[in-house]
């Protein structure tokens, strides 16, 4: 039982990082990313490959994952800067599908069978194989990510982001370098997702393409919408709820996606700001004028 709780906690932590990362894009910069699981996957695979083939220690592997995912984010974000939300949505979706196909078809990624035998982290003289120790690792990283996120959000840059989200043209007129912000956020979010991927890979020690497909992108999206776009605390809440809920509804496994879909629709109609979305701020983002 305790092992199970630990397992859930570790997963929740990983999802928190993922949710916060996508929240930066959607809730703060007002963009869309429907293929975010692709960065998660890129991070996971890079971290796995790097430690399997080059025997790099975990911190280096995680860093590689972060950089690789971030670079892919940059590569995707740059050319798509000018796109409107709905086009961007489809492009990120398509990106997710393409990356998924790459994982499935490339030899080095092991195809549909994936990569087994990923070594558990071992550094600072500690072997992180025992779950409780891994949890501590995850918690530390999560706390660091949250601190960074809060500092970003409360700073001038955070306000600039929200300005871009609410009314991009006005933000530009006020002298905010919109493209720069959008790119930085996108890259950052991708990098964070990559980090989460690395944590996942070294925990489960086995990865395959299924984990990083559209299904997961939608799951993260639901977490963000549920918890509240534009609220970091909301991301935490959303991630925790949607990690625990499916496990509690084990028998209702088939109903999971049904619930996600229904949740998304209902939430948007009844409470678009999510559970913890800041009332006024989120509503301004979500309602048009006149």
């Amino acid at each position, binding site marked *: 039982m305790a092992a199970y709780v630990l397992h859930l906690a570790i997963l929740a932590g990983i999802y928190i990082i993922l949710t916060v990362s996508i929240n930066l894009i959607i809730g703060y910069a007002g963009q869309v990313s429907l293929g975010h699981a692709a960065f998660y996957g890129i991070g996971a695979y890079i971290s796995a490959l790097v430690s399997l083939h080059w025997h790099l220690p975990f911190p280096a592997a995680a860093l590689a994952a972060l950089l690789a995912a971030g670079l892919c984010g940059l590569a995707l974000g740059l050319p798509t800067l000018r796109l409107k939300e709905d086009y961007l949505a489809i492009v990120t979706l398509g990106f997710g599908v393409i990356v998924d196909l790459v994982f499935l078809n490339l030899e080095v990624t092991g195809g549909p069978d994936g990569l087994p035998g990923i070594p558990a982290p071992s550094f600072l003289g500690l072997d992180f194989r025992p779950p409780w120790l891994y949890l501590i690792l995850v918690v530390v990283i999560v706390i660091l990510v949250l601190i960074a996120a809060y500092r970003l959000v409360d700073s001038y840059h955070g306000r600039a982001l929200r300005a871009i989200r609410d009314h991009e043209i006005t933000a530009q007129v006020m002298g905010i370098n919109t493209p720069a912000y959008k790119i930085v956020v996108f890259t950052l979010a991708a990098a964070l997702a990559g980090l989460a991927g690395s944590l996942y890979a070294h925990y489960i020690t086995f990865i395959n393409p299924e984990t990083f497909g559209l299904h997961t992108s939608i799951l993260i999206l639901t977490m963000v919408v549920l918890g509240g776009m534009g609220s970091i605390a909301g991301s935490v809440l959303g991630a925790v709820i949607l990690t625990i809920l499916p496990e509690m509804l084990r028998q209702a496994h088939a109903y999971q996606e*049904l619930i996600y*879909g229904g949740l998304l629709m209902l939430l948007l109609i009844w409470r678009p700001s999510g559970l913890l979305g800041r009332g006024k701020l989120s509503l301004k983002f*979500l309602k048009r004028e006149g």
Partner: protein
Amino acid sequence: MFFQQLINGLTTGSVYALIALGYTMIYGILGLINFAQGEIYMCGAFVAVLLLATGKVNFFLAFALGMAAAAILGVLLERAAFRPLRGFHPLVPLISAIGASILLQSLALLLFGPNDRPFPIQFTFSSVEIAGLPVSTLQVAILAAALGFMGLLVVFVRYTTYGKAIVACALDRDTARLMGINVDRMVSLTFLLGSALSGAAGIMMAVYYNATYPRMGMLPGLKAFSAAILGGVGSIPGAILGGLLLGVAESLGAAYISSGFKDAIAFAILILVLLLRPQGILRGRGD
């Protein structure tokens, strides 16, 4: 070999075109992407297949009813996922439509299970000779039917009052209202027509691949969207052209480049178009 691939491509392309028409009309009048278009396609297929499986309905009636079911689903979808969210940031109806898409897929999964269902009627198809080369009658039938539906739509939009009213709403919503046009009704009509076409597309593919399953709409839906963008979103001839081109490109690409990445071709084209010529070939609404 090339000719065969071309025919294959035109066949799947004409189906993509049917779905793309739905996207383009909805985008034209609402400015939004209907993420659940693929599920409407799937619904048409399932209704037809289920009716045929009872053995009490003939093919054409089942086809018509399948289209009707898809059309009704489309109208309901508009009421549930789009109308209540008017006036919000465009991200909101987008996510709502995604939610609807997932909802419909998982509903179908629960009701029908994940396995492929073969088409209840096994047609015997032969070959005909066109320009001295063999072509399957199935492909001819699909192409003919698809082009027929597309033609009907074009006639509707160009020559009937309601068709012109829909175009008017897409061009200038407020002024359309000044003509006494009830825009909400035109939006519903648009969904009705676009969904009927998608339903027809679904049934055709159910026959072509002899497989009907809940997730069947996902990829064709996304590819059809690429096709709509390629041709110029908001433009009806654009959707038709885009669909056919995409089908052919996919077919040829799968044969000559790599078959594993066949599905990626549509997205690669999408990304290229959006980067290089976002208004598409025939210059759609492009706002």
